[in-house]
């Protein structure tokens, strides 16, 4: 008899809720067995603003996924995004203690716990500690164990979020009698799927442009070193269009999908397209240049914000593996060129070909797939029998009891 466990990757986004079910067999392999989707309500800029509406949508999606697969979910991996995710670097250093001058296991453990031990502001919880390469006497090393040296430094990028907001999302899942095994930052989840090992090794940047928020994760030497999120996304493009061209939001949304481009393609300002294209009263011609210019400015700004947040990591020479775009925003025409213009590195739209086929290859499912992948790694690390709540959840429990 073999043991199997059904895990769900759930992303509660501003545009839709995606639920993917995966079956982990013997803690080794993953089969994707079900999917459920529903359009979101009560989520604005990546944050839950209406608990009941968001809860209903999520439950509908979970239910449809369970029905499709005919199984019950054992554990949930939840994607996290939105306004209140921040990060800071935390560093620590120790002197190598052993007599022969070689780094021992204890040294590594001590420096790691020192680096992770930084206090967070109140009401904030750690989501990830992203480890950056160790430094031994000022040279960068991946595995310092048994290497000779005097001074060992560890540095982490600590991603933290507002405990209440993360709690809201967890409560939605708990309300369905499901257990959240872990929460993962959207971009980190997406990055594990869309970026190849080689790209991560050469340094790359994964950007998940959602409807309400944009997440990013930067990789260096094979591992994620910086990640973050900020509440700008596709909704802002529609909003800009609706203000700039004086139209309703749904009209702007439709124009964006039909004619949107992240760079100005039509340099002739005279070229026009019809607003509704239905020949009814109220239809009017709109300058293509204006549409494209508004979008170009906004998209460029989104990439510029990321570039500024990354600092030196966002420079083209650190992005040998290029920029990988995913999420709904990546469907915008010429999105790659716009990103190339800002980062000075090749950009492409992400593809889930390594993990999935058919519909699931589209970049909007990258995050949910990444959650499952993360879940698989986590389960295989723990072994199939073990299943304890991770540190984050214990901390959250403390806050809410």
């Amino acid at each position: 008899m073999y043991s199997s466990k059904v895990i769900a990757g759930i992303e509660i986004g501003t545009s839709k809720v995606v639920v993917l079910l995966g079956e982990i067999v013997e803690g080794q392999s993953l089969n994707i067995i079900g999917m459920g989707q529903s359009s979101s309500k009560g989520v604005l800029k990546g944050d839950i603003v209406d608990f009941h509406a968001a809860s209903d949508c999520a439950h509908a999606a979970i239910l449809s996924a369970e029905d499709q697969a005919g199984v019950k979910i054992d554990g949930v991996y939840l994607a996290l995004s939105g306004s209140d995710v921040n990060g800071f670097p935390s560093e620590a250093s120790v002197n190598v203690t052993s007599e022969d001058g070689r780094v021992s296991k204890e040294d590594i453990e001590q420096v790691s716990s020192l680096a992770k031990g930084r206090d967070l502001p109140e009401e904030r919880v750690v989501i990830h500690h992203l480890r950056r390469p160790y430094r031994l006497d000022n040279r960068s090393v991946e595995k310092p164990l048994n290497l000779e040296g005097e001074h060992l430094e560890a540095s982490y990028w600590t991603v933290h979020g507002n405990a209440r907001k993360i709690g809201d999302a967890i409560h939605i899942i708990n309300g369905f009698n499901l257990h959240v095994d872990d929460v993962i930052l959207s971009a980190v989840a997406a990055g594990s799927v869309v970026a190849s090992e080689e790209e991560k090794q050469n340094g790359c940047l994964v950007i998940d442009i959602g409807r309400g928020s944009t997440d990013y994760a930067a990789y260096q030497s094979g591992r994620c070193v910086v990640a973050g999120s900020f509440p700008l996304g596709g909704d802002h493009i529609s909003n800009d269009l609706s203000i700039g061209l004086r139209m309703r939001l749904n009209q702007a949304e439709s124009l964006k999908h039909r004619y949107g481009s992240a760079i100005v393609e039509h340099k002739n300002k005279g070229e026009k397209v019809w607003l509704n294209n239905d020949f009814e009263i109220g239809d009017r011609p709109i300058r293509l240049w204006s549409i494209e210019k508004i979008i170009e400015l906004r998209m460029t700004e989104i990439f510029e914000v990321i570039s500024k947040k990354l600092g030196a990591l966002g420079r083209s020479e650190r992005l040998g593996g290029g920029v990988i775009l995913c999420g709904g925003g990546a469907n915008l025409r010429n999105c790659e060129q716009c990103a190339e213009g800002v980062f000075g590195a090749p950009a492409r739209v992400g593809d889930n070909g390594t993990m999935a086929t058919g519909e699931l290859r589209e970049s909007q499912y990258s995050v949910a797939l990444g959650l499952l992948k993360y879940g698989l790694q986590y389960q295989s690390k723990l072994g199939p029998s073990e299943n304890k709540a991770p540190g984050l959840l214990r901390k959250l429990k403390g806050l809410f009891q």
Partner: protein
Amino acid sequence: MSELNEGSSEIKPIRMKVIGVGGAGSNIVDRLMLSNPSDLHLTAINTDQQALSNSPVMDKHCIGKTVTHGLGAGGDADVGREAALADKQLLEEMVKDVDLLFLTAGLGGGTGTGVTPVLADIAAQKGATVIVFVTLPFTIERAARSNAAKVGLDKLREVANAVIPLPNDLLIQESEPDASLLEAFSQADAWVEKAIKSIWSMMNKTGLINLDFSQLQQVFANRSSKTLFGLGEGTGEDATNAAIADLKLCPLLHTPEFSKKADQLLVNLIGGTSLGISETQRIMDSIADAFGKDANVVMGAVIDESMGHRVEICVIGTSGSSDVTIFRGRRRMKKIPSANLVEPDSAEIPEKKSRKSKKTHDKSQKTEQHEFSFSEGEPRGEFENTEGTMFEGQDLDTPTFLRRGVRIPI
């Protein structure tokens, strides 16, 4: 000048002078030379002898030869400043007996940034009203240039009556997307030229509603930190309304460099012979309301036959000054002559005048003013009720094109 203008110009003409400082400043003066309004005196000064020798302007001076040996300031504002101080007497001579002095310069380099504040200071001490037009460097130019430009701008604001900064980035929006750099620069120069000519015609052309120098002086009486400046142009059947629409879209009105409301406002309208008084007045009222409800508004309308059906509007305003009311009497005289005639020249004038200005605003009611929303704070649309997304001091929920002042044609 016609009899309408008797008060000022017949007795003593206003002495106006334009001085272009440094390379960029001289270029603008060169442009003005080509379309020189007759009684505008043009001067170019530079620290670079060779650049100066190429200028077609008659009156040109190379300054600071003892400092730079006529080889230019090398992009160092301190050198420019030293050069100006070395030739202080020459500069004093230049601005002596000038009533209205325009200075044009490009900030960010050596000569423009260093010399202009010194010259403005000298001129102001000699009693001239100094209006400075400066272009700010493109963002593609080095960051060092834009820092130098900021320092220069602050110095100028301390000494000049009005400083009108024109960010080059904005000005090239007016040109075609694939214009060459040279075309882009000349576009920037053209803006300054338009502005100077507009003020010049205000003073010198026959007025439908006349402006005189003392009014101009009052608008610029106080040194203020921020200036409001906009130009609009319209042609055809409905030229006046087209000009207003154009003014509304003027990129300069949407930049953070400019103040959105003014305490002192100068509005000038230049049009062909078809320009009517009632139309003029209606439009001017609405402009005044849009830019500053409590502003003291000085208005002028000029008829220029060569304009044909074209109409140009120029708005200049300053903020942060005292509350002296200088609402224009002559304008009212056309409407209600009696009110103006019985008004005694006595101590109660200030009170009366302020009441009068209120009345005029009431009269102009809210018929079409709702159209104007330059100053209402920037819209956030769907995100109106959410927490702002602040990044580097900007609320990113506000459309990018609005924050960057990009003009979007509808």
